[in-house]
């Protein structure tokens, strides 16, 4: 029914819904001829989607927003009809930093506020001794990982731009960089945290689901004008990815899904490691595995709700990411076309149903719940904001 589609992805477990949709034939059932193209950088995924080499892409939610706003790059309106996953990242520390933070812990080590305060003490001691600032690796300037690190540190009183170094690292380089001391910690998605634990070079400190509740992680991104011209194709893609997500959620399918995902042209990481991430994402992980599984990603293809989709622009504004305070007008950013998704589901006979975990408040371990209707009020309540270089100096008390 349709011409062949090229879809770009980055080898991460949260591309699972797309990979399974293609490799298990859910796309073929929908009459879609999809070729998945494994990419090495988010910049490539963004550029190839922008210029039309890709019809759709597995994309960091904040990149979809930044591209729609033209932040730091060419402006191309992007539509994100579905979330490919919520959460799923984790913060992993080198053994040395882990030991330093544990030595400063005063309270529950699983509480991000406790660890953030401990980090602030470690940072203060290093500054007094004249030791180089700690370096934290994250995956892209416009990434949930960046905001999750910043939110956590700032809560303890650490200024992410002044007190530490936040650097971008491609996910496959994370583990080696931690092992050779290039970074002291990283925030990344599955499977890389588990790989670091397995190699004995890292300790998982937090799942990001402990830091920001219901963080939109990756989306299926398409160009707005392409989506307007091809509504049937978008609906078919949504149905195929939804079926794939449903398949992945079933415990009896984890081994098969992990085997498919582990192939060299997909994620290319040991199936056992991937299976652990899938099990964790489905809520089947005992506490004993807590230190080994990488993050808790909620599987499912979900209609992004207003609260979820509008939080990343709020964080961009807080830290002046993009070099200037981006406008967070009500209609800024990509259009998340929930209505299209719901009608696609109705067509399939499914529902927004039990797999939809996006309902409920969008919270964090510190600060108020996020209110999409009052972003300035939310940011004012957080207090710790970046001084905008081209604008006014904002107070930076960094209580949160």
């Amino acid at each position, binding site marked *: 029914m349709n011409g062949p589609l090229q879809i770009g992805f980055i080898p991460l477990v949260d591309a699972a819904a797309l990979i399974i949709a293609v490799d298990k034939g859910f796309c073929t059932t929908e009459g879609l001829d999809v070729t998945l193209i494994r990419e*090495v*950088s988010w910049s490539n995924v963004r*550029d190839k989607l922008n*210029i039309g080499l890709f019809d759709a892409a597995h994309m960091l939610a904040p990149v979809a927003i930044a591209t729609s706003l033209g932040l*730091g790059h060419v402006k191309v309106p992007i539509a994100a009809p579905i979330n490919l996953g919520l959460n799923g990242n984790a913060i992993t520390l080198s053994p040395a930093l882990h030991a330093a933070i544990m030595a400063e812990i005063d309270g529950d080590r699983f509480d991000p506020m406790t660890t953030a305060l401990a980090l602030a003490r470690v940072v203060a001691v290093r500054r007094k001794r004249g030791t180089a600032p700690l370096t934290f690796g994250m995956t892209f300037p416009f990434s949930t990982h960046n905001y999750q690190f910043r939110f956590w540190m700032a809560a303890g009183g650490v200024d992410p731009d002044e007190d530490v170094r936040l*650097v971008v690292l491609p996910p496959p380089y994370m583990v080696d960089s931690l092992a050779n001391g290039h970074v002291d910690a990283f925030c990344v998605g599955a499977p890389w945290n588990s790989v670091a634990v397995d190699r004995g070079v890292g300790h998982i400190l937090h799942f990001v689901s402990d830091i920001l509740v219901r963080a939109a992680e990756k989306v299926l991104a398409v160009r707005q004008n392409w989506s307007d011209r091809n509504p049937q194709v978008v609906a078919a893609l949504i149905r195929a990815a939804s079926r794939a997500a449903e398949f992945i959620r079933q415990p009896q399918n984890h081994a098969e899904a992990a085997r498919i995902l582990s192939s060299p042209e997909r994620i290319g990481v040991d199936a056992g490691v991937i299976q652990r991430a899938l099990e964790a994402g489905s809520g089947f992980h005992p506490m004993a595995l807590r230190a080994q599984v990488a993050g808790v990603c909620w599987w499912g293809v979900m209609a992004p709700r207003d609260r979820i989709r509008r939080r990343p622009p709020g964080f961009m504004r807080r830290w002046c990411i993009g070099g200037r305070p981006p406008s967070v007008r009500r209609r800024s950013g990509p259009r998340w076309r929930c209505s299209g998704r719901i009608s696609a589901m109705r067509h399939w006979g499914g529902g927004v149903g039990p797999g939809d975990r996006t309902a409920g408040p969008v919270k964090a371990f510190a600060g108020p719940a996020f209110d999409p209707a009052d972003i300035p009020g939310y940011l004012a309540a957080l207090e710790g904001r970046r001084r905008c270089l081209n604008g006014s100096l904002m107070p930076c008390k960094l209580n949160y």
Partner: protein
Amino acid sequence: MGEVSPKIVIVDESPIRAAILEEGLREAGFTGVVHISEMQSLLAKIYALDPDVILIDLENPSRDILEQMFQVSRAVRRPIAMFVDQSDAASIQASVDAGVSAYIVDGSQKERVKPILDLCISRFDAFAKLQNELERTKSALEDRKVIDRAKGILMKVKGLTEEEAYVLLRSTAMREKKKIGEIAQSILTASELLK
């Protein structure tokens, strides 16, 4: 060139491609060219060199590291801008097709960078062609070996001369609409199975 040549950094793990590009740039009068092949501490190296233009191949995951330079922060002294205007989609298309991306450090003049990018695109294209040719030559050599062994088997089993064995291979390939190499390979496989 009347003015000082802009300082250009090439980030590429392929030494041959980087050499081809560097040579082209030098011939065109761009003398300040430095090649970085080691991705460890990439940003620190770039800051130390303080270039006006950065060229990076698209197969390099470290491209995302450079994107960090779009940000204004303590870590970034001279932020970079994208190499083209919003309107210049053709340039982006051409460079992505060629497999290279360019970044201009803020303050550099755009019109001076355009010829650098154009040259870079054509050299990348030339390199890709060279590589394809090399691949073709390699597989032709591989085919040649397989065909020689298949001829040997046919000569031995059917008592043919070398000439007759080759004619048989070629006519079979034509009849089956396959490459001679493929027919030769199936003879090798079959003889392996029948051993």
